[in-house]
């Protein structure tokens, strides 16, 4: 399957090329989070009970609501991609806006959770304090919690930024989304960030439930 250079100008070739670039980028992202998941796996197998105990200090209700919010945002993102492919400008703008709004709701809920942890002195470092027996390993759990959900949140913020730029360009008619793969590529990224959360949610919030 050799793509000929004569095709290098046409649209489907450009679309495939951009999307292949996005997929390769997502591959690096998988390995990036993979390193952290490996670390988590090592320590959780080392201290399974303490991790479960620490997990009970997270708010399962807020975590579940956030999971629902994020999954819904993936749905609106999928609708945005479909609208872009069909060249429907107004629905595209609405769906982009909804995706951004849901992303912001997720970040809002996440930051209230962070605030609770701050009040409860569960943020690792000099001010960490925990009354149970296994202070050290609980701090380890929260180290992973903050690094992994924090990096996830940074990925959300980057995604929201890209979506906002796309929405602006479509609104000002500077971009014809049916002629390129920008919306589709951003959609792939958004779904990837969503999938990361699908792993984070049970590994941090739900492991305490079974005890």
């Amino acid at each position, binding site marked *: 399957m050799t793509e000929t*250079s004569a095709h290098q100008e046409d649209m489907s070739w450009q679309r495939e090329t951009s999307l292949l670039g996005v997929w390769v980028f997502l591959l690096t992202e998988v390995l990036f989070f993979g390193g952290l998941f490996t670390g988590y796996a090592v320590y959780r197998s080392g201290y399974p009970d303490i991790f479960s105990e620490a997990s009970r200090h997270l708010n399962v209700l807020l975590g579940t609501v956030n999971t629902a919010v994020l999954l819904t945002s993936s749905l609106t993102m999928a609708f945005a991609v479909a609208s872009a492919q069909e060249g429907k400008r107004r629905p595209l703008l609405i769906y982009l806006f909804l995706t951004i709004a849901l992303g912001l709701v997720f970040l809002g809920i996440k930051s209230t959770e962070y605030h609770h942890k701050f009040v409860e002195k569960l943020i690792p470092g000099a001010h960490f304090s925990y009354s149970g027996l296994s202070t050290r390993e609980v701090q380890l759990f929260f180290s992973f919690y903050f690094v992994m959900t924090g990096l996830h949140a940074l990925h959300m913020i980057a995604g929201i930024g890209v979506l906002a730029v796309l929405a602006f360009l479509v609104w000002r008619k500077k971009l014809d989304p049916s002629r390129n793969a920008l919306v589709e590529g951003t959609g792939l990224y958004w779904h990837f960030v969503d999938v990361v959360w699908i792993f984070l949610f049970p590994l941090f919030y739900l492991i305490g439930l079974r005890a």
Partner: protein
Amino acid sequence: MTAAVEPKDNYLTAGFSLKSWLTTTDHKRIGVLYLLSITFFFLVGGLAAVLFRLELLTPPGDLVSADSYNKLFTLHGIVMVFLFLIPSVPAAFGNFLVPLMIGAKDLAFPKLNLASWYVFVLGGLFALWALLTGGVDTGWTFYTPYSSTYSNTYVSLMAIGIFIAGFSSIFTGLNFIVTIHKMRAPGLTWFRLPLFIWAHYATSLIIVLGTPVLAVAILLVGVERLFGIGIFNPAIGGDPLLFQHLFWFYSHPAVYIMILPSMGVVSEIVACFSRKRIFGYKFVAIASLAIAVYGFLVWGHHMFVSSQSVYAGLIFSFLSFFVAVPSAVKVFNWTATLYKGSIAFDTPMLYAFGFIGLFTIGGLTGLFLATLGLDVHVHDTYFVIAHFHYIMVGGAIMGYLGALHFWWPKMTGRMYTEGWSKFSALIIFIGFNLTFFPQFILGYLGMPRRYHAYSPEFQVYNVLSTAGASILGAGYVIPIIYLLWSLFRGKPAGPNPWGAKGLEWEKTSSPPPVHNFAEIPTVTEEAYNYSGTNEQG
């Protein structure tokens, strides 16, 4: 296109202002930008080596303090690995040649390519900042808990620099993968690709899969220092060895990021100067991919004495022997290519010969180190230093210099002086061996690495090594002079001074025009079809 005159319109004459260079998206110009920046870092890293080789001339620590010595070898390691060797062949020559070799106008994402250079420079500036404000003393390996808890040098700043520079190699790798998949000229099937392209494809896979793991390891060291989050901190139940696992998961494959592109260079040069198709082309091509895959499964051979379980050690030892197979396939196939070839001893070929011989020594001593029992004896001694310098300097830099001399006429349109270039190739070979061969003996006798003072019985080998280093240093300076001279006085090279096969030689001028080819070429033959017949490989 046959007469040896320089074309008036080429990528170099397309604009002379600084702005035209700093805003270019032409892959050839970006390759040149990389070439200049990494040469700068090579000189910085080399200067550190000069200083600590002088210190090691005498047994007591008399020239620099122990602290400064630690900072010097750290500076040398970090700059040479992350800011010179990793970008060297791919970012300079890969950038220049990948589109030319596959008959494309540019890389798939030209703007991303320019961004990668800026990101590289930014990362390099952070590293320089860390070095100028006081340096880092952790060694290039950043082992925890020293780097995360105890070192009071500028580790965080350096970590940020390495983290940023990592993105530039990810951008380059991503660009190469997509370009090689989607932009090959009509008729250029996978098994007609030059082996340089196969090598860069394999390298790009390693870059894309490995670099993010280094990024996350470095990031965790950074947040541990800055925010007190303690994933590697034994005081809260963390395991410092986890860092070593993450670090070597990247940094062993990183050896292949450094050596695979040079292997690609050697394939091109050996074919050209023995006027033969590479023997067992498909095996050499697949061997690159095999190295990329197996390279990810052997990192534990750096941790035999780190309390890793014996069973893990056995498996890592076995797999490390296994990864030598595809490397050996390449060496044997290059040698077989020489057999009955019409061999010409031009400068690039001298470097290719240097590569084959020195890489073989480096590879074989790697097997010594992969042997569990022997490694306990020579671990953390100068034997290890000698081994990986045979790979990285004897291998990777020989390949880099081979590439520089082979494609210099294509990049600049000018020829350099034959006599001086052969002389400096010889000087480099002699200087290199004199520098590093005594270190094998030193290591076997038990001299540990990373100390600024040593016991007097080791002095004779250290004097030899320092003497060799000064010869090697001279060997590196001579090419800078005659290559610069050739820019002004060298005679025009013409499109194909070596009579080489390949689209970059046969289908475009030297230097190439902005869009590479007057018209996109169509490929109808195998790579390295020097015999003129269209045999199948």
